[in-house]
């Protein structure tokens, strides 16, 4: 099975024939990381460096499903066209771990029919609000699953659970998208305020984005950006249009549909990782760099987070409707298929809710 590849350090990607090399300065210790069978291992790459201070590694193209680039990496046009030919999207992240952009392969699944129907669901206020509601509902339900879990573990989260349960009852009463966004914002901030009860260390304070101001915000931003890129890739495998979104405004980002779908998966794929990393003391203060008014994961911290994230994506679960095992990453793809079916009028969309 193909893997996501994460490049954390600075360097250069070059192409010679049908081989792509990553060239980087020797000083740092880690180049690629990938998760294979739940165990972390360095991917075997041929070392063909000749210069003393630089090293060259072969990128195992056939094994890569997408590249996540966190370092400052320069690419040649030869590399870009080769990655595109091999259908490998490349996601770029900024200094804060924030999502910057994606280089998409040129092959796309297109369907004029799907395109038109998706747009029709956006144009009609009723249809748009229906879908936007489902995204908020999915997000709220999955947040509740997380809270209920910690409630069972003995944390007193009754107040937060009642608040969010009540809020989710009023989703149906929302008349338009702005009301829904406000409701969803209220749910999230209530949820985030509960982090202080769930987590053994780190204070939540308030949500700060660019730049994040404390370790928790740094992790939330890092994880959300990562998830956003993952969703973009899954949408790419369907006929859905990345730019037509329902809860968020299509003008918000180039891939705004991914923002919508991400909401549903944050509790499963980002928040649970944070809870685990903090409560099991896998991540601590020394995995962050604090600057004047920002806080970031350092390379070691990113590596830990990415390893955990990758493991999560590959975790499998027996799907209730399909009766076969699917990975968490595949769940995102299935969510896209459900949206396709909704647009085609085959089956009303119901958001994914953690069922285990």
């Amino acid at each position: 099975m193909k893997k996501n590849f994460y490049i954390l350090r600075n360097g250069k990607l070059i192409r010679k024939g049908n081989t792509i090399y990553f060239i980087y300065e020797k000083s740092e210790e880690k180049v690629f990381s990938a998760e294979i069978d739940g165990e972390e291992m360095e991917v075997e790459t041929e070392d063909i460096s000749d210069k003393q201070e630089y090293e060259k590694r072969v990128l195992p193209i056939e094994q890569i499903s997408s590249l996540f680039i966190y370092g400052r990496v320069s690419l040649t046009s030869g590399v870009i066209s080769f990655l595109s030919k091999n259908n490998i999207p490349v996601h770029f992240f900024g200094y804060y771990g924030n999502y910057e952009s994606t280089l998409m392969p040129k092959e796309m699944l297109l369907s004029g029919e799907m395109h038109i129907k998706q747009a029709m669901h956006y144009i009609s206020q009723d249809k748009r609000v229906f879908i936007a509601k489902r995204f908020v509902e999915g997000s709220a339900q999955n947040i509740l699953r997380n809270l209920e879990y910690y409630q069972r573990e003995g944390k007193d989260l009754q107040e937060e659970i009642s608040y969010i349960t009540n809020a989710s009852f009023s989703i149906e009463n929302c008349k338009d998208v702005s009301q829904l966004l406000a409701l969803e914002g209220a749910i999230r901030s209530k949820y985030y305020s509960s982090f202080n009860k769930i987590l053994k260390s780190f204070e939540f304070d308030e949500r700060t984005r660019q730049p994040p101001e404390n370790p928790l915000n740094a992790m939330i931003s890092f994880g959300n950006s990562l998830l956003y890129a993952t969703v973009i890739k899954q949408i790419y495998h369907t006929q859905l249009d990345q730019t037509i979104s329902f809860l968020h405004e299509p003008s918000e980002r180039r891939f705004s549909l991914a923002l919508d779908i991400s909401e549903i998966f944050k509790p499963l794929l980002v928040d649970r990782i944070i809870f685990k990393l903090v409560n099991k003391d896998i991540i601590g203060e020394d995995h962050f760099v604090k600057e004047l008014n920002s806080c970031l994961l350092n390379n070691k911290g990113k590596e830990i987070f990415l390893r955990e994230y990758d493991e999560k994506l590959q975790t499998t679960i027996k799907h209730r409707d399909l009766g076969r095992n699917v990975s968490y990453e595949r769940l995102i793809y299935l969510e896209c298929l459900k949206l396709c079916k909704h647009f085609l009028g085959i089956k009303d969309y119901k958001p994914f809710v953690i069922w285990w």
Partner: protein
Amino acid sequence: MLLSQALFTGTQVNYYIVCPTKLWLFTHQLSMEASSEYVEIGKFIHEKSYSRERKDVIIDEKIGIDFIRDGDKLIICEIKKSKRIEKAHRYQLYYYLYYLRKIKGIENVEGRILYPTQREIEVIEFNEEISREIEKIMEEIRKIISLDEPPKPSRKSYCKKCAYFEFCWV
């Protein structure tokens, strides 16, 4: 009438036999992966001349259809490993015969299934009865694909191998 008939591909006939839902989804460009077979079959359908001695056309990964010229006779061959030919493939071959005869006007054409391992050849009979059956199938295909929504999927053992499995059952 004749022109629109020529718009169907062998794959559509094949999918009609297999599952109407699959036929609809495929026709409405809802391929689950970039489907190369579509392109290949399109190439075949639009092929203008059969003047060469022999042409190999790959219909999908499994079926290679060869055209052989034998005097003025044109022979379409499907090479199979085992004798178990699936109904869908046979109808696909019937359709090609129909297409070449009735639409291209090439009367002198026949279909053969070759079993190299058994050194056997099965000649696919084409007659008026089959021709009428193909026409009925085409009418059915036309009806199914013009529906606004795909026909409701129905579970069959084939579903597990189908590219639309997740789409249908999620």
